[in-house]
């Protein structure tokens, strides 16, 4: 029986695994790319380029144990290249701008991020994702939409987990601040309308 199973076990070819990886992850990759670059057509091209780069990697004789993180890494690099074509920005520059020392990352734990996220309306926040800087948008999408863990994200963006946590926190805070600002703006408008109606 075991021998039969062994005999019956089908080893998959490179091509088959590659196509299966497309069938399984292409939608998620497309969604991620669309949210990052806000351009549907460009997102399709990025997904295409991602898979062709991965195939080239396989042709060189490399083994891919798990396609998912590898695909996200390649896609992320391509998106970064895309942004570099648009504008130059780096975490260091951003950090320098906001005066944040990486030494203070210790207090930004997973619980802190989770606590902050729980205070935000996800449905309304989704509409504001495009307004976030890409560094923040990237990690939020990877974490809360693509479902990658902190370690996977850190490997993907080639940054430490602390930096990933900082970006997550700052991105979520920015979302919350903008939602609160819109709420306040809406309330002010309602008050002015009430005043006008009374007069």
């Amino acid at each position: 029986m075991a021998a039969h199973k062994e005999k019956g076990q089908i080893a998959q070819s490179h091509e088959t695994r590659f196509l299966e990886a497309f069938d399984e992850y292409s939608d998620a990759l497309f969604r991620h790319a669309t949210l990052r670059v806000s351009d549907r057509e460009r997102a399709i091209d990025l997904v295409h380029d991602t898979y062709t780069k991965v195939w080239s990697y396989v042709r060189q004789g490399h083994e891919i144990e798990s396609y998912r993180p590898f695909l996200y890494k390649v896609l992320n690099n391509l998106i970064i290249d895309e942004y570099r074509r648009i504008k130059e920005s780096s975490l260091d520059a951003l950090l320098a701008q906001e005066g944040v020392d990486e030494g203070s990352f210790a207090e930004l734990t997973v619980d802190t991020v989770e606590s902050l996220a729980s205070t935000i309306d996800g449905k309304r926040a989704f509409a504001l994702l495009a307004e976030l800087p890409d560094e923040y948008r990237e990690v939020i999408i990877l974490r809360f939409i693509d479902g990658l863990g902190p370690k996977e994200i850190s490997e993907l963006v080639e940054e430490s987990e602390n930096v990933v946590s900082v970006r997550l926190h700052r991105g979520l805070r920015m979302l919350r601040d903008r939602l609160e600002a819109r709420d306040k703006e809406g309330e002010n408008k309602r008050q002015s309308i009430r005043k006008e109606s009374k007069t």
Partner: protein
Amino acid sequence: MKRFSEQLNKQALQIKMTALERRELRERLVSYVEYHPLPESVRTAGNVQKSPLLSGETFELVSIFNIGKYVGAFATLILLVVPLVAERTVPGDVLYPVKVQFNEEIRGTLTLSPYEKVAWETTRLERRIAEARLLASEGRLTPEVEAEVVAAVRTHSDAAHKEIESIRETDGAEAAIAEIALASALDVQSEMLANITHDTTTTESPDGAVALLAGAVAEVRSAAGDVSTNEALSYEKLMARLEIETTTAQELFTSIAGAASDEERSDIDRRLGALGRVIAEARAHSEHDSPDVLAKLTDAFSDTRKLISFMADIDVRAHVAINDLVPVVQTAEERTVSLASRIALLEVASVRIESNIDRIPDELREKTQAGIGVVRSDIETASSSRASGDLDGAENALVSADAVITDIMILVGGFLPPIVEGEVVVDPVATTSVAATVIDEEPENPGADEDTPTEPISPDGI
């Protein structure tokens, strides 16, 4: 955070590729993989083992299937569009070989019976001639192309004869009918090309290109020989084929009647009527297989084929008179009236010569009188035959009388007095019911003008 993540996810899941986008992206990747295959060292190395089921061959089959539909669409384009475009080509065009070696060959294989194969080879022969004439009219018929056309004419004629011989092995009568059909088509083409060659007003004849083609067609036609007296012909086969052909002719006439002139409609309708009468008379004849009946049916079949060619081919109509292809056949009543008219006119001619016998030199007078005697005898025979209904007998007698009168006029016409205005003269060789006309002027050189006159007059102006 779970709630935040769920909410975010719910919104995000609305972002996805359409089925078409996904399919197209997949096909792009499949193409990429096919054009960038794995090196053999990579294919067999490592922990990944090739499965006899999920091997590269399977992947190739899947990818070929995906690419196959593009190949299929391209093949459809090639198989449908290119042949359609090729149909309008002539020798020298890029797609002309597609027309001849693909389109026509395919159509040839679709013909079911050997008879239809003969008909198709005949059609191909006619096509080559039409193409050559088109090129000649445009000044593009080079010697090389002309040689190709001549060779093609011989090739298709040989192919038709080959099919006829294969028919003859099992059905002699059908083979004979196929031969008549081929000969009729060659007669039409030969007549048309001969007229074009002799017509100095067209642009096709000056360089002689069409003349060579006409010669080739004539050669092919003469090689076919006399097909009307084939002993293998049978009444049943001929009648069956005639029914098909006359039906085709009638349908063709109906389709072109709207575009044809009144004269053309009248001419064609008259001939179709004549063919119908011949068929009816043959049916009514007591001996269906008599040589006379078979000969008439054979002529009717040949005339029907020529009439169809005349109606179907505008080039034939432009260069060939219908009467040259299918001479008019008079009805019995028409013939009776015509014979009576000719008899009367011959009487007048004979009286004129006899009343002026004194003007004729002595050495010619006796011969003239003897000739007049023959004419009178023939007139009497014609009259009695006509009265008894023997129209063919009357015709034969009048033909003899016409020939003698013509000889007399050549001999002594110069001694006769000039024609007075209003005097009726006879055209001994006229075949219409009205063989005479009034001459307004005296001819300057009686008997010397051999050109075809615009109005029928006697050769020496009696």
